[in-house]
């Protein structure tokens, strides 16, 4: 098991800057997610760690050792490919046993290599030694596939194939487990249950895991920490809660959950609040920043909507007038799109049975708790 340290990693593909000075410091046993839109360089980062791409510059460390010049077959990174990349001519058992065979192959003399090659080429040509068989069956049991050990991988469902790929990577007891969008080929329901399976196994084994995804919900619900990437750069690293409550850029605020972003200028300080003025609104925030031009970030659930004149007396700060454009009933919450001057704000309110929902075209008053207004 080991930590992973990536420093100043840059990767150029014939003119395309896929990665620019990426720094990651991943703790031993941590579940670390790389999150970002398509083409931002997540796969490239992972392939550099696995050794399939040579960095243009920068270093990669696994455990204590720098691994830049170690070929991919010696890095001991278990990788789960997006397409699973199972060996189609081998059955489930043989797929999982592959790395154990290779390990034995590398540590035996020439005479002993032959039977291993033979059983790698065709299952009828050789018997597996007891320890390998035991270990494979153990891990197959663990991912609940022991009953399918002799099936060809093409005869398995998507979720089962996924678990074969996972078992195949885990059986070699890798220093790090790398997973590139492992859930993207599964349907919605299966994806949820596989999230739990993967997280449970990771916790059980305490294995350092790097998980690539472009699905923020996936990253937020599974990972200990998340690195948000965009155009080859790491924009922010933090726990899911940190990323959600303190995004460092409007891009992240929007990528990690939904946000309302308003442009404004800090016009002064008042009773410990920063006062920000924008087009058609004046807003107070407990946040203090150096610069004058700011982005005002407010999460939809931190805005309250009232019919005019119904605001209670303790909600008198940050009142904004608007008009309801669309209201969408989403079960436990009601989401409104509300027009405020040139902006369109998203507001989520808890749905209380019996209370009426604001209708389209209706005038509303919005209030925002200054503590929930983020300036960046």
């Amino acid at each position, binding site marked *: 098991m080991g930590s992973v340290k990536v420093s100043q990693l840059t990767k150029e593909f014939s003119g395309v800057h896929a990665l620019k000075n990426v720094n990651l410091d991943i703790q031993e046993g941590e579940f670390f997610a790389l999150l970002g839109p398509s083409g931002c360089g997540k796969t490239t980062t992972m392939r550099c760690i696995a050794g399939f*791409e040579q960095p243009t510059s920068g270093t990669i460390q696994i455990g204590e050792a720098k691994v830049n010049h170690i070929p991919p077959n010696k890095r*001991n990174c278990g990788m789960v490919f997006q397409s699973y990349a199972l060996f189609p001519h081998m059955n489930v058992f043989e797929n999982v046993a592959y790395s154990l065979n290779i390990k034995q192959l590398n540590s035996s003399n020439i005479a002993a290599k032959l039977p291993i090659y033979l059983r790698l080429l065709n299952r009828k040509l050789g018997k597996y030694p007891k320890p390998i068989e035991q270990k494979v069956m153990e891990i197959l049991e663990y991912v609940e596939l022991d009953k399918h050990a002799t099936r060809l991988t093409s005869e398995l469902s998507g979720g089962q194939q996924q678990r074969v790929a996972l078992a195949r*990577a885990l059986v070699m007891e890798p220093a790090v487990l790398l997973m590139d969008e492992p859930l993207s080929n599964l349907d919605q329901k299966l994806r949820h249950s596989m999230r739990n399976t993967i997280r449970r196994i990771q916790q059980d084994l305490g294995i350092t895991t790097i998980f690539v995804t472009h699905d923020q919900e996936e990253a937020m619900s599974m990972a200990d920490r998340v690195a948000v990437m965009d155009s080859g750069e790491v924009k922010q690293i933090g726990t899911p809660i940190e990323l959600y409550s303190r995004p460092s850029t409007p891009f992240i605020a929007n990528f990690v959950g939904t946000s309302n972003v308003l442009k404004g200028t800090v016009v002064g300080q008042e009773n410990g609040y920063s006062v920000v003025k924008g087009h058609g609104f004046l807003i107070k925030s407990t946040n203090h920043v150096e610069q004058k031009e700011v982005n005002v970030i407010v999460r939809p659930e931190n805005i309250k909507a009232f019919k005019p004149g119904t605001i209670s007396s303790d909600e008198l700060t940050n009142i904004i007038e608007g008009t309801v454009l669309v209201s969408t009933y989403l079960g436990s919450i009601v989401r409104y799109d509300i027009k405020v001057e040139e902006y369109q704000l998203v507001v989520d309110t808890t749905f209380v049975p019996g209370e009426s929902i604001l209708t389209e075209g209706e005038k509303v008053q919005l209030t925002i708790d200054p503590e929930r207004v983020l300036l960046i």
Partner: protein
Amino acid sequence: MKNRLSSFNGLTLVKVLIYLFFGVFLLLPLVSVFLVSFTGQPINLLGSITDPNILNSTIEKFSSASFDNYEKIFTNKTYFSAVQNSLELAILVSLIVIVMCIPIAYGIARTTMPFKKTIAALCTIPLIVPTFISAYAIIIMFGRAGWVTYIYNSLGGEGMLLNPYSMAGIVLVQVFFFFPYALWPMVAAFKVSDISLEEASLNLGARNWFTFIFVTFPLAIPGVISSALLIFTVSFSDFGTPIILAPKDLNLLVVEAYREIAGFFNWGGAAILTVIMVLVAAFFFWLQHLFTKGKNYGSVSGKPKQQKLNDSKGLTRTLSVYSLVLVIIPVLAMISILLQSLATTWGKNPLPNGYTLSHYQTIFSSSMGNIQNSIVLALGALILSVIIATFVSYFVVRQNSSKLDFMTSIPLVVPGIAFGIALIQTFNTAPLHLTGTALLLIVAYTIRRLPYMVRSTMGTMRAIKQDIEEAAVNLGATPLTAAITIIGPLMLPGIAAGSILVFITVIKETSISILLAPADWAPMSLAIFQNILRGEYYTAAAMSVVLVIIVLILQAIANRISKNQL
């Protein structure tokens, strides 16, 4: 693997070696023969690099280079008529094949014609037989003492129904033994053409034949033209038929070129004829590509259309009889060879005078060497092809090496006899004196058949996703171990099917064998050819039967393998 550190040396070296192989054995000969067409004397390009004396003489030859040979095409009567006759033959054959195949193709594609399966199966027979054997079979049937001639005469006909030693004889052989090349693309074209348009036409009250001529056929025209162009190239490049059947006064490019080199050692003449052959073949090959580009007649994709097959009794029966009569002719030709091989003597009678196995005894006692040679040479070509094709497809598929892709397609457009002449001319002297060795023969076979092999292995390689290879490496395997344990087994079916086809075509190969094989390496095809020339017809027939049986068995194995693969 992207890991340059570990794979740079080995793989790059292999790539350089492959380029070197094609450079020396394909490009160099073609360039040399092109130059010789100007100088009129052999040019030793390799020697010019290694030996200053040769360089001087080469420069001297260039100083006397001229367009004389090119003028000769028009002034020399023999050359001019050779070009004319060859073009005429190819055009005639492709036109007849197309007209003959339209009803069969329509019958197979769009009707409930009876015996469809039988007809389709019989259509594979012509492709198994080397053309010089087919030509010889036509002699057995239509010759002065042939059984067809006997029947014709007893029905009151005078002389021969058709003289096999003539343009008509050559056309007959090529039509009946090349038509399957056109038939299947045409069947596909008829299958694809839009059914709904035809139905509309029929609904509007149009009659069946009207619909066929004005709706069905026009839609299939691109496929038909492309088939015609293919037949043109095949007929134009064929050496086996003319060398057996062309009479002295019928000049054809392939025969003329062969005579210039094998009879008169006229390098300039052979070179100019070679250049013409390559240019014409390449031009028609290119034309054919133009027609097939973007139109994938082979694979009907998307939703399967419900085909309404024509089941009018009169039509389907007529088509069936017509098709059976035509496809039975190659079968009769093969039966004739079989009977001849078993005959004690066979005069001008419908059947042999008596039967014996002695001809087989003769070839198994005295010609075992030729069978052995064929097998050894074919194995040599097979091994070389497998190695080169596997690496070429690796480079083309994994490293996008389009130059290599192009290079391996060049042999497709070079007629065998032209390639043979280019090789003889180039490797006639030091430093690489290879003419007359088994090695040059194997190399020639390999290069001729490589395009087919490469296509077969490339398809399989494409089907293996790169991440499967990476997964193996990720699990600890070195690139080499990954290649042996993962890529190898996954490619095996493709390689096996491809290599059997290489083996078959090498055993069938005529032009290269006749031109390049030294006496002590004579393969079966050369032995049969010489037997025919020497008038030893019965042993020639027996050897032909053995050859066809070997090919049949291997073909069956190859079909098995590629079927299992699907």
